[in-house]
């Protein structure tokens, strides 16, 4: 690791000010950032440790849906009775990120701010059009993920919580990369009061909505309808573990399983 300065603010305002002033980087669970720093791939001059900020914690439910503090760990979300009852697909998603040790440190806010193209959470945020609350504004899930490792967050802007609306039905299935166990293809399907939304992660440079699957599932929210959908390979990732054609094939297959899992 390269040297850095570490600060421990206790309020979001102080944290934001510290990041803006230093040009530094927020540290949540650190499960991606510390790894990158160890390999000398990231070199923040200042790390702003968010862990002492109590207002970033907690999981609550109200009429708008489930609101999860940015520092909620994947394990906390996966184990949460509130989430398991109201939005079991999200609990299952969180419970399948990385491994248990990673889930005990990694956070919701950190995961979506990082926006790894193979991460699971972005699929839920986008499929449910969740509302991302920051220290300065709210951002719709639809406009949050802007590209590979890129989001709508401005410098010094800190995610405080995310509110997930409660769908009629939702399901998420990850087809794991055999090595990393990140999503080779992950599909989140949601039947909401205003229609069906489907988000796909792992398959392209950034999470995206599949209109073809949404159209098919709007007609018939069934595994068969998902399975019969044809997805083109254009724009999909090709790498050691999957060609674009294989990913294109997997998307409806995994979508069908997600529909089946949605109960």
């Amino acid at each position, binding site marked *: 690791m390269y040297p850095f300065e570490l600060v421990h603010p206790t309020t979001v305002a102080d944290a934001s000010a510290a990041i803006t002033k230093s040009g530094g980087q927020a540290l949540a669970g650190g499960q991606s950032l510390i790894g990158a720093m160890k*390999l000398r791939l990231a070199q923040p001059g200042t790390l702003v440790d968010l862990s002492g900020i109590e207002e970033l914690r907690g999981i609550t439910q109200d009429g708008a849906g489930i609101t999860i503090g940015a520092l909620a760990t994947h394990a906390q979300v996966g184990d949460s009775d509130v989430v398991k009852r109201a939005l079991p697909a999200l609990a299952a998603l969180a419970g399948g990120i990385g491994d248990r040790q990673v889930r005990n440190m990694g956070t919701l806010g950190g995961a979506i701010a990082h926006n790894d193209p193979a991460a699971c959470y972005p699929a839920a945020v986008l499929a449910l059009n969740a509302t991302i609350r920051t220290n300065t504004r709210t951002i719709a899930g639809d406009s949050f993920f802007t590209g590979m490792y890129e989001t709508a967050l401005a410098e010094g802007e800190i995610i405080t919580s995310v509110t997930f609306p409660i769908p009629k039905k939702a399901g998420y299935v990850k*087809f794991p990369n*055999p*090595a*990393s166990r*990140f999503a080779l293809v992950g599909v989140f399907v949601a039947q909401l009061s205003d229609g069906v939304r489907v988000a796909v992660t792992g398959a392209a440079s950034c999470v995206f909505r599949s209109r073809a699957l949404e159209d098919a599932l709007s007609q018939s929210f069934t595994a068969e309808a998902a399975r019969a959908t044809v997805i083109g390979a254009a724009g999909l990732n090709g790498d*050691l573990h999957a060609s674009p054609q*294989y990913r294109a094939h997997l998307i409806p297959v995994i979508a069908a399983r997600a529909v089946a899992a949605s109960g």
Partner: protein
Amino acid sequence: MGASLIGQSVRRKEDVRFLTGAGQYTNDIVGTRATHAFFLRSPHAHATIRAVDLSRARSTPGVVAIFTGADLTGVNGLPCGWLITGTDGKPMAEPPHPVLAQGKVRYVGDCVALVIAETLNQAKDASELIDVDYDVLPAVVNCVDTLKPGAPQIHDAAPGNKCFVWAIGDDAAVDAGFARAAHVTKLDIVNNRLIPNAIEPRAAMASFNRSDESYTLYVANQNPHVERLLMTAFVLGLPEHKVRVIAPDVGGGFGSKIFLYPEETAMVWASKQVNRTITWVAERSESFLSDAHGRDHVTHAELALDADGKFLAMRVQTTANVGAYLSTFGSCVPTILYATLLAGQYTTPAIHCEVTASFTNTAPVDAYRGAGRPEATFVVERLVHQAAVEMGIPQDEIRRRNFIRTFPYQTPVALMYDIGGYEPSLDDAMQVADVAGFPARKADAAKRGKLRGLGYSTYIEACGLAPSNVAGALGARAGLFEAGEVRVHPTGSVTVFTGSHSHGQGHETTFAQLVADRLGMSVENVDIVHGDTGRVPFGMGTYGSRSLSVGGTAIVKALDKIVAKGKKIAAHLLEAADTDIEFKDGKFTVAGTDRSKAFGEIALAAYVPHNYPLDKLEPGLDETAFYDPTNFTYPAGAHICEVEIDPDTGVVTIAAFTACDDFGTIINPMIVEGQVHGGLAQGIGQALLEECVYDTESGQLLTGSYMDYAMPRADDLPMFKVSNTVTPCTHNPIGAKGCGEAGAIGAPAAVMNAVMDALAPVGVRHLDMPASPHRVWQAIHAARS
């Protein structure tokens, strides 16, 4: 004493330290005023080094010294331990393998500079300021492509990138066999390149003692005496007796820690230059780049059969990748340890194999669990499977028709099998695997939309390396015996010094059982010392499943001397003739009487020789033996794998795996079973998950971390069903054959044959490993469209 300790699952003596965090692996040992080493490695697969500028790096804080190849005057290259003579009668091309690059780098990860600093961060900081001016050259990574005209030339001393062309077997007899064949089966096979991935990365700590000009090297290694011999005699020119090599607790090896590597060699040399202790532990990404890799063969194989499915002849042409440099045993793995196993368990009367070894811009390739024998088994068992399919003969039946049934058996590829019993293993495995119930399971899977398949692998291996004279005639540059010393203490407890090395195999328990059983004492009274040239008389180390059959036999030979001497002492004390003394259950008894002396009394008498035959016997009770085996051992068995494939995703699931192995006499069934489990996991890993991939253009390692190299995890594997048949080895006193590699040798073919069986209805004939979801889906997709 009670029942024999042989065959008892004694719980391991070594476990408490590992379970409580008290194990002492190399990087756990604290050196006084230790410095930290960091190796600057080549980022290019192939480049000449125009210049290296160290000026900025040398002036960074904490730097103790920086060395490049130019500093290593008087230091030779790393040696290869086995000379292969080609079909042209010439020795293999053996280009220099510099410790630090000399004007050229030949693979990504090749060591360019050794940076020594007070902290690791400082060493890394300094390394980033080393300015290396590279002239990047085209690279080649594929073992076949590198032999083509116009390929980049890697070494001046290896024209055409050819290391050797070597052959074994009677070509004319093979031609005759094919001429009268009723059927010929042909396959093109790639044996996928693997990265060993012992979970403890390679590590070393080197120090120099000015007072007596001696060196101490702690190193994660499987054979410290060999490490020392190669390093001192061939590379550094140091007096062997001035170097002590200690391989303390070692966290797995699987072959990758046999070899003499550049890192520890440079560190030993540098420890005198800086007069400081130097520590280094590989980061995993360095392990991926620089541990010797395994396998990497491209093979065309043909099997000739008569109308009844009897094998008439086999013809095999293999190209083997040796990497950028010849590693310690890089030349013998794809030849001696490979082609000699192509008879398998069968009476094939004529076999010919030609092996072309080539240099590429990749990490050196050397022994990895099984080392040549998994590659041979894969060729034989895939051919047999395919021949049975093509001729409509059941998989077990074609094997039964060709099994060797009388022993000793001379194969057409040099080996003489002393003993075996192949059909009982197959019968047992088929029963445990419930082969009879397979059609019903397959039908049930089909109802669920899944493809189910059953695959066999009846494998053989040659272990117990090795008769030194035979090995020497075949090109070995070292002996392959083993040494053992049994030191009986005055109070009767025992310390055994063995040249074998345990890095997970449980020698501290198995060897203690062997000794305690022979001496009639409890295992608690026997300690096993290994892995230290300063304490153990000599040793060739642990690889090739040789520890018990060779290392254990050396101990038995030393025990025989102990008992023989004990009898003389007892005869004196009991006033009887030497020849009348029997030793049993820890007691020396005058035959036919109840007059006896306990082992402890004899030990005490040997060290307090007041009433002792000093005129004809030395005091003390400490004996050493060297044992050189008269033949290899031949573990064999039958593996049956059942897979289920999801055609929608290409995911292959191991539904069941059965292994019935014949390892000869078993000392500790629990430990043997554990060895089989681990071998199977690695074999299944090769078949379904693992593959080392380099970019064919840039030569960059694409599978350089666990993000891209798929390791078997707990949920990738089933509960294995493991059993044994026993035909004791005929030429060592223990009857043991070895068990460490069997799983990795038998499993890949069993898995792939099962995959091919499952995919047969779809029309897929052959698939290369690993049968990853992507590859299986592509094959199904291509066959259907």
